[in-house]
């Protein structure tokens, strides 16, 4: 018996012949032709309408119920966010300076030329707000690094205290000062650094209190306890976030997955199975495929980690090149003193600057008892020069500060994970290192690298980098390939080539998705059908054929 498809195929053939052979030379002929076409068209539009309604109903009948697991990820995410904050506070590697977020502000003020005035005002307010947090309301009397810093911050604080948010007057003051002292912002930074140093105890105590509260509120005993709790939560989250069949269907319908690739006989499917599924495995055997997929899940995680490692290899190489010659040869090596020396230089020079400033600021309010205006001008210029020298010294201080942190843990067994933790703990130095390693000054680019780096460093599934020595080159591709060869997955080093990793990951995802669907209540063909119907409906709506 003919089915509908056979029927319309035959009918269409016949109608095409009819229409193609009807005469069309005269107006009467054409009228008759067009009439015939109209009649046929009406019939086939009716067929199409009924067919599309049927397709829609059939597609809707294939929808699967939502998985309950979706609900749990919100609570899990909330717990993780809280514990990540606790981890941040308890991090033994860094100090109150990083925990207060001063390092991030420092990086921003260092890059002030990237910003406009509004952003600069936000940065300065950011510093002031942090002092406010510990109960310190800075006044104009706290800003004496140079007379110009004093003048600017007096105007700034005036606006801030009035809460008008109109910084136009401050902009005018900046204009006046800038041509005499273009390094004004840099010197404001130094003033803040000095104030932070003076109030170190207040900030440290504040952090201590925050730590106590955070541990109590989150039932955490110490840093290691926090790490263990986080690991456990991330395992739960990864399980909950595992792609469901509904996720795959959504991706296919959006066009993010090419469902044709999952169909039997597709080239992509055949290649993926040939590359990754051991030949002795019976792919139609559910138990065997579950085993294979478990191994592939682990391989996927390893490749993602390896991919991350490769992305940040320039950073690791930069670090290695800088410190390889500083690795202590024995335990008797003298402790590193670079930081102490530069701190002494800074203190000495700041004392010199203070003596100059005393001369500038002293005297009757508003008057200066100088022999001439030139004396005052000369002193101001001297103070600016001193501040410039101090700015350079602080740059050295920054290098030595980080170096001292590194030297305290440096050994020939330092791992990539150790470097990840170091840079993760020191946002400012991480960004400086990124700028150097990737040869970029773009604030946006550096920020993006920094965010990606943090995600990598925070990833609790990292396993390759935790044992990977920084100073001893290892062939990671070979290590991964060897491991999975033991699982009968014939991976080659070439398959793990950096340029091929995305392709390999896609092949793994393909197999995992196929397996997921084939063990579910739906089929690849049904999903394919749903995608096709989506396109059909979209096409019909586009042509004004509302359903």
């Amino acid at each position, binding site marked *: 018996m003919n089915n509908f498809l056979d029927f319309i195929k035959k009918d269409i053939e016949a109608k095409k012949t009819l229409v193609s052979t009807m005469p069309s030379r005269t107006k009467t002929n054409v*009228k008759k*032709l067009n009439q015939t076409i109209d009649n046929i*068209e009406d019939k086939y539009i009716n067929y*199409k309408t009924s*067919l599309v309604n049927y397709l829609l109903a059939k597609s809707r009948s294939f929808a699967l119920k939502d998985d309950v697991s979706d609900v749990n990820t919100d609570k899990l995410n909330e717990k993780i966010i809280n514990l990540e904050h606790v981890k941040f506070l308890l991090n033994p590697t860094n100090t109150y300076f990083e925990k207060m977020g001063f390092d991030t502000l420092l990086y921003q003020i260092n890059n002030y030329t990237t910003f406009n005035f509004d952003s600069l005002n936000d940065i300065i307010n950011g510093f002031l707000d942090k002092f406010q947090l510990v109960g310190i309301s800075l006044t104009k009397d706290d800003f004496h690094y140079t007379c110009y810093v004093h003048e600017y911050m007096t105007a700034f604080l005036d606006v801030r205290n009035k809460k008008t948010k109109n910084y136009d007057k401050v902009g005018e003051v900046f204009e006046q000062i800038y041509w005499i002292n273009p390094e004004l912002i840099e010197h404001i930074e130094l003033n803040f650094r000095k104030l932070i140093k003076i109030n170190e105890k207040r900030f440290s105590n504040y952090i201590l209190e925050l730590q106590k509260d955070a541990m109590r509120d989150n039932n955490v005993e110490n840093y290691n306890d926090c790490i263990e709790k986080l690991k456990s939560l991330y395992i739960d989250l990864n399980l909950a976030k595992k792609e469901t069949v509904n996720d795959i269907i959504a991706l296919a319908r959006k066009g993010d997955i090419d469902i044709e690739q999952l169909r039997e006989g597709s080239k992509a499917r055949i290649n993926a199975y040939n590359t990754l599924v051991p030949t002795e495995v019976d792919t139609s055997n559910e138990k065997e495929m579950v085993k294979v997929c478990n191994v592939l899940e682990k391989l996927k995680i390893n490749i993602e980690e390896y991919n991350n490692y490769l992305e940040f290899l320039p950073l690791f190489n930069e670090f290695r090149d800088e410190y390889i010659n500083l690795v202590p040869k024995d335990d008797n090596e003298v402790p590193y003193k670079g930081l102490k020396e530069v701190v002494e230089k800074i203190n000495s020079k700041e004392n010199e600057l203070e003596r100059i400033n005393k001369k500038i600021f002293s005297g009757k309010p508003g008057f200066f008892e100088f022999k001439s205006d030139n004396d005052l001008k000369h002193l101001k210029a001297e103070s600016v020069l001193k501040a410039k020298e101090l700015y350079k010294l602080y740059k050295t201080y920054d290098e030595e500060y980080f170096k001292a942190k590194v030297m305290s843990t440096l050994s020939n067994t330092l791992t990539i994970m150790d470097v990840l933790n170091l840079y993760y703990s020191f946002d400012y130095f991480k960004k400086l290192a990124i700028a150097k390693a990737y040869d970029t000054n773009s604030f946006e680019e550096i920020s993006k690298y920094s965010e990606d780096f943090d995600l990598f460093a925070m990833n609790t599934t990292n396993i390759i980098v935790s044992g990977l020595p920084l100073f001893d080159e290892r062939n990671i591709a070979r290590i991964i390939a060897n491991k999975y060869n033991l699982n009968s997955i014939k991976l080659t080093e070439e398959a793990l080539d950096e340029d091929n990793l995305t392709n390999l990951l896609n092949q793994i995802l393909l197999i995992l998705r196929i397996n997921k669907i084939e063990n579910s209540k739906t089929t690849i063909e049904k999903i394919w059908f749903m995608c096709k119907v989506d396109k059909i409906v979209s096409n019909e709506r586009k042509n004004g054929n509302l359903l």
Partner: protein
Amino acid sequence: MKNEEIIDFDLSRLNLPDLIEAYEEIEDFLHFLNDQRIEEDDLDE
């Protein structure tokens, strides 16, 4: 046999790829018919 009967009866017999093919056949044919139309004004009587 009425058109509706054909549709009601046969569509449920078609597998999924055939259903899609049926739509594509009709759509292509409708385009063909549209192309076959001739403007009546262009011709002499």
